[in-house]
């Protein structure tokens, strides 16, 4: 293998990973600023005057320098591997996400399935965190998280398939191409319902308010990441944010037309990132506006409302496709 081949093999993933890391770090600043403005305050201000621009760097440095406390009775293998197992699927999702028609690390024919499957692997890492901590409350919290996430992954996947059915393909580039005429979110009735269902099930799969009963464990005891400190904690937080942004990117591809937008085609990635950030802002807005739902109500909502609803939406999408004569758009 020649040098340039090696460069092409290693370079793009390297660039993507590092770019993502920096971008996600600054997304945390965005969340803090946005939340602050919602609450009539300013947010990070001093680090990197005048608007806290260096805050994420400062946070990363701080967490790197913190003491790494490992509980004496924790299972060392599971405990130490868990943040990595939690982090890797979050980043792996981006391998299949296209930022522009030909700007994807891996152009998969089953891109959608790959992204959904990989993002579901987060559960394993989460449970390993809870198990490896050797802490009764961490384990309880992890079990609840698994319960909730699995309950919501099913309707999430079903509703993510609605655009695939409408477009007739599982390849993410094809999904966006199918939206050249009309974004899927604009499809009358079906589009909006599917988008809302996507948002809610995504929020619940991410343990975000109003579904964050897992983190609300801190009201009584502590969440699954209680025993993690320093860089491992940072990795867990990073993984959660990366996963959340990844789901926002997926939502953009599925419903909001991906890189489609007025202007030259070269602006595509900018549109894509812009729309994903808007979705992310919507998630933050919801987080800082609502109180949380009780855990039995969350699960009831999933199985009694969202599963039938998303099944119905999928069937409706199939009916629409059959009515217009089958095949893709």
């Amino acid at each position: 293998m020649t040098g340039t081949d090696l460069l092409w093999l290693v370079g793009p993933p390297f660039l993507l990973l590092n770019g993502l890391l920096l971008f996600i770090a600054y997304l945390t600043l965005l969340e803090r600023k946005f939340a602050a403005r919602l609450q009539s305050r300013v947010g990070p201000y001093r680090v990197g005057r005048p608007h806290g621009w260096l805050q994420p760097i400062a946070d990363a440095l701080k967490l790197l320098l913190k003491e790494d406390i490992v509980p004496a009775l924790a299972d060392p293998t599971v405990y130490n591997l868990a943040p990595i197992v939690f982090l890797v699927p979050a980043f792996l999702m981006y391998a299949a996400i296209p930022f522009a028609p030909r700007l994807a690390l891996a152009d998969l024919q089953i891109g959608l399935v790959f992204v959904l499957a990989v993002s579901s692997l987060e559960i394993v890492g989460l449970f390993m965190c809870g198990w490896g901590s050797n802490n009764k409350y961490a384990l309880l919290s992890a079990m609840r998280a698994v319960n909730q996430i699995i309950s919501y992954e099913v309707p999430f996947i079903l509703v993510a398939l609605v655009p695939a059915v409408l477009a007739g393909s599982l390849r993410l580039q094809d999904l966006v191409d199918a939206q050249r005429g009309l974004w899927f979110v604009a499809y009358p009735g079906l589009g909006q319902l599917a988008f809302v269902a996507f948002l809610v099930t995504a929020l619940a799969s991410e343990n975000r308010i109003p579904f964050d009963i897992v983190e609300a464990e801190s009201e009584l005891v502590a969440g699954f990441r209680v025993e993690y400190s320093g860089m491992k904690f940072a990795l867990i937080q990073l993984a959660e944010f990366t996963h959340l942004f990844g789901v926002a990117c997926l939502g953009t591809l599925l419903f909001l037309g991906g890189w489609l937008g007025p202007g030259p085609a070269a602006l595509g990635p900018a549109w894509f990132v812009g729309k994903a950030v808007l979705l992310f802002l919507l998630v933050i807005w919801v987080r800082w506006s609502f109180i949380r739902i009780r855990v039995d109500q969350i699960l009831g909502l999933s199985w009694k409302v969202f599963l039938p609803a998303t099944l119905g939406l999928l069937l409706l999408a199939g009916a629409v496709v059959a009515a217009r004569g089958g095949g893709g758009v």
Partner: protein
Amino acid sequence: MPDPDARAVIELGYGGNERLVMNMGPQHPSAHGVFRMILTLEGETIVAVDPIIGYLHRCHEKLGETLTYVQYPSIASKTDYVAAMTAELCYVRAAEQLGQIEVPKRAQYLRVLCAELQRVASHLLWLGTWCMDMGGALGGGATLFLYCFRERERILDLFEALTGARLLYGFHQVGGTRYDLPADWADRCRQTVDDVEGRLDEYEAMLAGNTIFLVRTQGVGVISPELAQEVGVSGPLIRGSGIAYDVRRAEPYSAYEEFTFDVPVEAAGDCYARYRVRMQEFRQSIRIVRQVLDGLPAGPISSRPGVKSVGQVKLPKGEAYARVEGPRGEVGIYLVSDGSTKPYRMKWRGASFSNLAVAGDILPGHKVADAVAILGSIDPVFGEVDR
């Protein structure tokens, strides 16, 4: 009622019919103060509750015996530190009742003014902390918490201009009040109250139509009227259960009979009913404040002005019980005097103490997450509970 078996034997389990005994407090992130509950859980459901208080006991009743009638009002505010004005008011009323001391009209109006402003400030704190308990310190609850505290700060600024202190005032004294209104205070007060009322409409809009909020509070923590009367709860708890009892109407004090206001009552008895009662109380308090400011008479602010020496108030032998309608309920003081400058015995009837007693009866059967919502709607302040 505490389950004696639950305390004697700890059975640890993770579901099924095995019971888990869990300790909540005295320090917990959604703390309403230092309060410990030993919960016996079956899965997610609370089966028994053993509440343990006393972590904030500071011997107020003993302090009352060692401090004179001039010294103690400043300390009285530390029982219900969130609603200090009503706590002080209760004590000085008891002393005045004992000594048959007249209070000038202006002082009575000022007392009403401060008591009602304090009610607004206290309820703002209740709303903020309750939503934060239910919603998370990093989430929607925190947003409402910061909004409520922003309004509360405006009222505290008013109190600071009036008395010099933000939380524990030392405003009342036997015979009247210690401070009079500064020059532009009345206008500032009117402005503040108008702003707070406008913002309250926004907060109600944010919560009242929110399904999540309704689902978390309706049907949760129902106190039946019979239970309410049996345990002796007062304030928004009893008015939320359908019984229209307000000390300001039952036994009017401090010129309350001269003001028109409604006493909100809701019949449902759940957390949502108590929320509605308090939200309406906001508006009624603002109504009273406006009436006071409009009708404030001129005159002295104390019938015993210039009380500087701590031994200057001597009350005749006897006993008296005075009660006020604090934001949390009926606060009462029972004073027994032996003719000297200090009481022989002082007993506090803390509103939160009786209100909290109902927790042991209504918590079983609810989920753990409801415990926080219910405690928040009871709105205990542990200075009052433990004294």
